Each structure stands twice: as C-alpha cells, then as structure tokens.
C-alpha cells in the first residue's frame, strides 16, 4: 500500500481499503525504521494522527475533502508550520515555532492532507547535497536498494555501508528521501537553483518546479525571493499534477503570484506527439557531463524523434553565464534576507550581552554555518554602494539575457526543452564532501539554474538507472505557465521509459536490525 502512487492510495481510501489512521500509522512506523536516512528533522506524530482521525471521520461521513484527504505528506523544513518547529536546519532557528502556516501548508491541510513532519535540508536551503544542515546529512534511500547493492563494488564488509552511501542531492534532500523511501506520498521542496529537481533526479522521483508566481511563497523562508518556488516531489507525474492543482493560484499574501485563478487539470493521454517540437539546447552539453548521462539524454531525444516529434538542436548562448550571475544575485538577496536574524524578535540569541552590537555579532556567528556566513559576506560586498553597478546591476542584465534566450527559443516554435538534470548520478557522501559547498553548488546547479533565472516551469523525470544502479533523470523545461503541456509531455515520456521502482530490501533488513537492537538493548 505504501508503494502505491498518491492517486492509487487516494482511491483505496475512498473505497475503504485502508483507513487514514492506518495509513498514517504505517508511514510513521516506516519513518522510525528509516530514521538512519535522516530525512526528517521533526516528526509530528501526534498532530499527524489527529489529522488522520479527522480525515477518517470525514470519510465515514462520506464527505472527504478531495483527493488529498487522508494522504500522508511531508514538508521541507523551510516552510512555516504553525505549532511544529521550523528550523531551516540552522542553529539560528532551532526550536523556533512559527505562529502561522505557509500558504502551501495551509492549502494542503485545508484539503485534508496529513502532515507527518518536516524534512531535512542544507542550512537555509543553501547547498546541493543536503549535507550541510545542522542536523547532519541526508542519506539517499537508493544507497540501500538492491539495485545499488548489486552494482556497487564491494568493499570490506564492515565499512561497506558507512562509506558507500550516496547523497540525495539538494537542498530538498530530506523531502526526496522521504518520498523515495515510501514514508509519504508527496513532499514539498523548494527550488531556487534546482533544489527540487536535483534531489528528485538522484532519488528517482518526479520533481516539479512550477512557473515563478504560480504558487504562493508566503511562509517559505526565502533563499532568493526572485527565484524561489515551492517544489513538488512525487513518485509519478500524475501525482505531481494533483499536488500542483491543490496549491496553484493567486494568494493575497504573495503579491508576486498570478492574478488569474488556476484551474486544476487532469493530464490528457498523449498518443500523438508528431506536432510536438522538442528543443535540445546544446549548451547543456556542459563540461563534466558524464558520458552515461549524455547517452541517456541522446536516447531520450531519439525516443521522441522515433515517435514522430520534431527534435531540434537549439542554442541558449547566455546559459554559460548563469552560474556566476546566480552567485551574485543569490548572495546579494541572501545578505538582505538574512539581516533579520539578529536574535531580537525570534530564533537564537547569544548570551553575549556587552552591547547590542556584540549580541548581534555573536548571535549571527553562532547561528549561521560557514556557508550562510560566506554568502552573507559576499552578498554584502556586492551590495556595497561602490560595487552595486559592477555586480548586482550587471548580474540583473545578464539574467535578462538568459531569460530572453528562452523567450527566443520558445518563440521559434519549440514547445519543450529536453536537458539532463544532473551531470552524473549521485556520488558517495565521502566523495561529495571533498569539495566545498560553493564549488559543488556551482557544478550541480549548472543544468537546473537557468530555469529559475527565467522563472520557467521545469520538471525532472526519472529515466534510467546508471551503471551503479542509481537513478538518472532528465529535465523538461516548458513555457511560462504552460504546466499542463509540460506535465503532459513528461507523463508521455514517463510511460515510455518505465523507470524501475526502488527495491528497498535494506529497509526491511534495517527494520529487522532495529528490532534486533531493541531486543538486545532490553536484555543488557
């Protein structure tokens, strides 16, 4: 039942094959037995069970609130949740309980979804591995899959698991791990430079970054306001469409959301793709792109071609400036956004009480990790009066050029762009931490980041397994607010590639281990 898709389990709830409470309990128990993944920062067991009970009452009255009623979900820990801690994986917000719900959280609740807990991330979503949060790194469930185990080179037995586990990607790695390990049916991530699509690719999930302005950001603790979008992580494209339908639309509390009302849609069954024009941007053949991924990408292009679609090479010439441009804009907004964390109104406050200034300084030194402090420092440098023109303004101009590249390509008749999502499959944690956060982010965001610059909708669709038995995903980028077309094509592709389901026998074994351990503990 837990491996079902959201739509399937929703049907099961409706038909009474499973009760919301039972479903919730099973998810909670799986969260406990997969605790080693470190996917969740906070598990809201009591609140979740209460919501499940409420849902159960609605079902017994025959009045469920919709498809989402009774569906266990998880939310990245940078969305505010009333009554449940919101930490951003930072010392700065450890213990912080928001008095309000983010609009997206409220919408999910209003439709009966059961919030299991808050998922792990890089501190303040700054990272691409989900390794740089104060609660420790997230482990990719695929590290424990039969597929990976079979393919990976066996090392000495004892070290095997500890040294071989791979990262989830990030920064929404906790949400990705949570969905991928079947502890919930959908999860919210956030996507500023690829933070939803990247872990989706590494964890074999669908990761949707909607058009900027389609979903409210109210209550999402910002990284870069002008690029942040709530992201959706699910096990299939249909599920992403369901969640999107429940979240999209104007929000009075977010002035950057679209004014028009949004009509939820069902995805049509695409049979004829001969009228479709797929663009292959040559710049995405980036340095460092693994041959394996390149092969998957080419194969996918061929798949479209052979099915009758027009597949053409296109150029997005300014994409190569995207990362450096992003670095400036991101750091500048981070410096600005983080200014509020001064220890006065909320969050961590240092004991240092010599003066207000020394309290500020100590609070921020103790509260933020090196990555956050580094971005604040460089951001403040870019915002200095004498640097503003040379960095911030220039970066904004480049951003415009990057966005215009997309406009031109779409205007030329291309419907959807097809690109890789990541340069390679997930790397082992021990590999990953050899490089610093800045270098890694610059490398890992390279394929996803331009869509944020342009505000375009983009989705990762799990496509194949790598030689090491790890997921590889491809990215589709669509026109602004053309989510329906994007998802329709993504779904067609999903059907063709038949991505294998994760075989988490290690979860069972681990489950067993936990039981064993508890037994032995009780004996000692």
């Amino acid at each position, binding site marked *: 039942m837990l491996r079902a898709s959201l739509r399937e389990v929703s049907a099961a709830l409706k038909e009474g094959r499973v009760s919301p409470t039972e479903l919730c309990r099973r998810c909670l128990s799986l969260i406990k037995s997969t605790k080693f993944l470190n996917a969740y920062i906070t598990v809201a067991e009591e609140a979740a069970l209460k919501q499940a009970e409420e849902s159960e009452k609605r079902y017994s009255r025959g009045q469920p609130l919709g498809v989402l009623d009774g569906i266990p979900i998880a939310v990245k820990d940078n*969305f*505010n949740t009333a009554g449940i801690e*919101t930490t*951003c994986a930072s010392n700065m*917000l450890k213990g912080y309980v*928001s*008095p*309000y719900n*983010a609009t997206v959280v409220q919408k999910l609740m209003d439709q009966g979804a059961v919030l299991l807990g808050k998922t792990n991330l890089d501190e303040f979503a700054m990272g691409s591995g989900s390794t740089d949060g104060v609660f420790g790194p997230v482990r990719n469930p695929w590290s424990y899959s039969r597929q990976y185990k079979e393919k990976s080179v066996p090392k000495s037995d004892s070290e095997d698991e500890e040294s071989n586990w791979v990262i989830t990607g990030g920064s929404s790695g906790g949400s990705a791990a949570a969905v991928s390990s079947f502890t919930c049916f959908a999860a919210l991530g956030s996507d500023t430079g690829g933070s939803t699509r990247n872990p989706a690719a590494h964890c074999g999930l669908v990761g949707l970054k909607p058009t900027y302005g389609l979903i409210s*950001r*109210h*209550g*999402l*603790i*910002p990284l*870069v*306001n*002008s690029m942040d979008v709530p992201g959706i992580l699910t096990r299939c494209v249909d599920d992403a469409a369901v969640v999107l339908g429940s979240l999209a639309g104007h929000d*009075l*509390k*977010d*002035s*950057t959301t679209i004014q028009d009302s949004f009509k939820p849609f069902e995805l049509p069954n695409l049979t004829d793709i001969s009228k479709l024009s797929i663009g292959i941007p040559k710049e995405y053949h980036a340095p460092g792109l693994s041959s394996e991924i390149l092969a998957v990408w080419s194969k996918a292009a061929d798949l479209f071609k052979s099915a009758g679609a027009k597949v053409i090479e296109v150029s997005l010439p300014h994409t190569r400036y995207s990362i450096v441009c992003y670095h400036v804009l991101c750091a*500048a*907004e981070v410096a*600005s956004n*983080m*200014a*509020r*964390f*001064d220890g*006065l*109104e*909320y969050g961590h406050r240092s004991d240092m*009480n*010599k*003066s*207000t200034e020394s309290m*500020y300084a100590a609070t921020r030194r103790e509260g933020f990790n090196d990555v956050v402090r580094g971005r604040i420092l460089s951001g*403040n440098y870019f*915002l*200095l*009066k004498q640097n*503003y023109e040379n960095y*911030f303004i220039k970066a904004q101009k480049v951003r415009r050029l990057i966005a215009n590249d997309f406009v031109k390509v779409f205007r030329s008749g291309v419907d959807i762009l097809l690109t890789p999502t990541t340069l390679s499959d997930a790397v082992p944690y021990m590999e990953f931490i050899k490089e610093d956060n800045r270098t890694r982010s610059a490398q890992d965001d390279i394929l996803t980041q331009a869509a944020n610059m342009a505000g375009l909708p983009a989705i990762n669709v799990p496509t194949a397994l790598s030689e090491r038995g790890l997921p590889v995903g491809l990215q589709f980028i669509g026109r602004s607010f053309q989510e329906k077309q994007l998802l329709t094509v993504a779904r067609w592709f999903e059907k063709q590639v038949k991505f294998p389901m994760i075989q988490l026998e290690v979860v069972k074994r681990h489950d067993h281990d936990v039981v064993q351990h508890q037994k032995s503990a009780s004996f000692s």
Partner: protein
Amino acid sequence: MAAAVARGCGGLWRRARQCGAGGPAPHGQRAVASSATGGAVSAGKSGLAPWVPVVGLEIHAQISSNSKLFSGSQVQFAAPPNSLVSFFDASLPGTLPVLNRRCVEAAVMTGLALNCSINKKSLFDRKHYFYADLPAGYQITQQRVPIAVNGSLSYSLCTGNKMSQMVTKTVRIKQIQLEQDSGKSLHDDTRSQTLVDLNRAGVGLMEVVMEPDMCCGEEAAAAVRELQLILQTLGSSQAVMAEGQLRVDANVSVHHPGEPYGVRTEVKNINSIRFLAKAVDYEIQRQIEELENGGTILNETRAFDSKLGFMPEPNLPPLIVYDAKSLPANMNHQQVVNIDWIHERLPDLPSVKREKLVEQYGILPEHSFTLLNEEGLTEFYENVVKQTQMKPKKVIGWILNDLLSYLKQHSLTVKESPVSSFLLADLLNLLEKKDISSTAAKQVLAELWKGEGKTPLEIVKEKKLELIQDQKELEQICQAVIDGQENEVMAIKAGNQKVLNKLIGLVQRETQGRSNPVLVKQLLEKKLSE
C-alpha cells in the same frame, strides 16, 4: 494677533543686522543679511564675499490610514507597546509585504496637490541598515523610482522691517516616495538594555523631498507649515508634529555667491515648526562661524550612513497607477488607483481657500492665513458670518482679536471654545442692531467665556447693559456732563473738536457703556451749539 504666517528672517545673523532688499547683495557691501527675499549673509571679518545659506528639507509624513503600508496591522498613536504588530511587522521569516492601496492613493493625492507628475510605474527598493527598531534589517522605500516627482509648493511669509509685507515663494519638490516607518527603541544605558516597540514599524510614510531652494529657518518653517496644512486638508496625513506624524530633516550648507554649494550637514528629526526655524538658523550661523574661523564643515551624519546600498524589493511587483486613458477596460475599479479620479476629487487647497476668503469676505490676505492656520477657525468664522447681519469685514476682528487671543491665552483649540459660533453671532447681532454698545459687547463676551449656558441677551438683561433708549434720559446725562466740564466746553467752542471725544467718553462712563456713542455725539453737538 497670533502669528498668522512665519516671519522673515531679517536681522538674523550675528554680524548681519540689516535686511536685504532682495537679490544678492552687491559685492563689497558689508552687513547685508540673508532675508526671506533671498539675500546673502555678510562674510564679516573674513573678507568681502557674503555667505549664501542653502536649505533643503526631507519631510516624513505618516500616512493617515487604518492599516500599515504592507501589513494589516492597525495604525494608532500611543497604543500599548507592541500591541499593533503583525507577523510581517516583526519580520517573521517567510512573511511578505502586501501593499496597502489607501497609502498609494494618499501619495498620489499629495503628489497632485504639490503639482507633481505621478509616475505610472514606480518601484520599491530595500534600503539596508542594521538597527534594533528596523526588524528586517532594511526599510522598503522608493528612493530610486518614486511615485511622484517634479512638483512645487508655494508658501508665504512676512518680510520687511515691520514684518508687514507678505511674500510668496516657491520651493521645488524633487519627489514623494512611499516608505515604511521604523519602530522605536529605547536605550537603558545603566542596565545596558534596549527596549523595542514595533507599533510604528511599517506604518506608511510619504517622504517629501524639497530641493534646496530655501535660505533660512523661517522659509523652511513657512514651507513646512504650508505642507502641513495641505496634508491636513487632503487628509493624507494628520501631520501632527507632536505625535511624530510629521518629522523634518533639514540639509544646511553655506557658500559664496557664484561658488559651488558648501558641504551639507543634516539636522535630523525636528518635530516642531518653531524649533525647525531655530535649528536651521543656528546651523547656518554655526557653519558661517566655523568657516570664518578657518575651519571646515564635516558631514557628521554621513559617517553613520551605511555603506550598503539599495536592492530592488523582490517581493513587490512594480507599482502601477492608471489614468483615464491607460485604465484597462476589464480592470476592477475597486482594485486600481486612478489618478484622474483622485484629481477630480481633490478638495480646495489652502491657497485657494485663502483666495476665496479674501474675495468673498473682503478680509486682508494675512487674515486669511490666520483663519487657515487654526484648525476649525475658518468654519467658525463662516458660521458666525452666516448667522449675523454684521459685515464679514467687521466680524473678522472679533474672531482674530477676541476669540483667538482668548483661546491662545487659555491654550484652547477652536473646538474647545466655550463660546459657540452661534452665541458669538447672537452677540454680534445685538451689537449690530445697536441694542448694546461695543463696550457692552465685550463685557457680555467676558461673561460668555465662563460658559455658564446663558445667552447674550440674558447677560445683557441681567447686567442691564442694553443701550439707553430713552432720549430724554440720555439728554439729561449729556447736559450734566456739559455742565460739569466748563474748560472742555470752552475748548470745543474755541474750535478744538477733539475734546468732544472726552465728553463722549464721560457720558459713556456715566452710562456704564450703555449709550450709543453716535447718538451721544449728536446730542452733545446739538447741545453745545445751542
């Protein structure tokens, strides 16, 4: 008379007593003062070139609105600390600004009243600085592309040696920008504590930037006073300085004619008009002395200025306002700001009101200033005029000399006046009908101030103040006065008519002000010519 208008600043500078007649003083002429008409200040001992003071103003007016600029919190003065703070005002993470349309309308209205062009598209920026009462670490403002630009404000002030000449001047308005107010912080040094009240944080402000077109404190004060009246007339701000709804920063510099402007200093957070004039003049004097003593002017406030610049506020789309031409047909009229619609509904501005008063009632221009300067006084005056047969020109004296000076003396507002416009009109009618003399009328008014609920007529009756209507009785009194004043009668008969006034006065005294002086005069003249 209460100060109707600001006074000119002649005779201000220590080494400069004489008032400039207007225009820059000729080179080499000593002791020519800066004046309201734009003069220069003598250089005193240092040399021949005079000093020209330059004054620019930045005025923060709190917008009169129910809720704050970007949040739903109420706006209210003197509420319990931190009782009017939304999640956004406290800058809780994840909160976003939502622009209050009322504040935009107030800014457009003010812009139109100050002859500005309204930018159909304006932008919001973040201005960064670290301060306890600025919880987000930045202020959302419109410094770069504000909602209104390139306006002007005309104001008047008294000049000349006797302060009797009214001069009208104009200051250019550079821009009006919408921005957030900060909270308030209170430092307790002994316990090294800072207490923060965020009630004011996020209240909408209009920053009105005036070009450095003024040259002394009195000009600055007159300009601010006129702005204050305009804001109050529009209702876009209550503009009560004592409550911090209108706060003024003045930029002051001095230079020699023909040379570039001197280094500016800022006099910040001035919250009374009287103090503004003094502070600006003090600063001008200080700079002149500093420069004449071979010193230099340092911009001290600039040293504190953050080196951090601006950044566009990413959470607010550009602010778009429309006019009749650009308004899209399918737009919900409740949700947009229409410049033309606001323009058509602008109330009469103070300058127009004054002109109308002068024209309609034949009063002096300076009287119209006084009427507008006191809240409710114009209405009071007009109500009296409506209810009495007395000529408006005569009524104004009673309003300005009697009513206003009484109110000032007792620190009362027009609203708090114990004598209503109805009662005063009643009294003036008795006077106009010659039922009482003007001396008696003053006595009645003195009774009326007590606010005991009596009508003027009741007081007249009670105090027996009505004019003696019996001609015979009056003739007898006149005769008695004539009989007792042989010398005066001789003088009059010898042709000194002035002495007649003394006899009239004596009759008045005899009748305790109850005789009609015109009638008394006639009677006396008649008797003396017999």
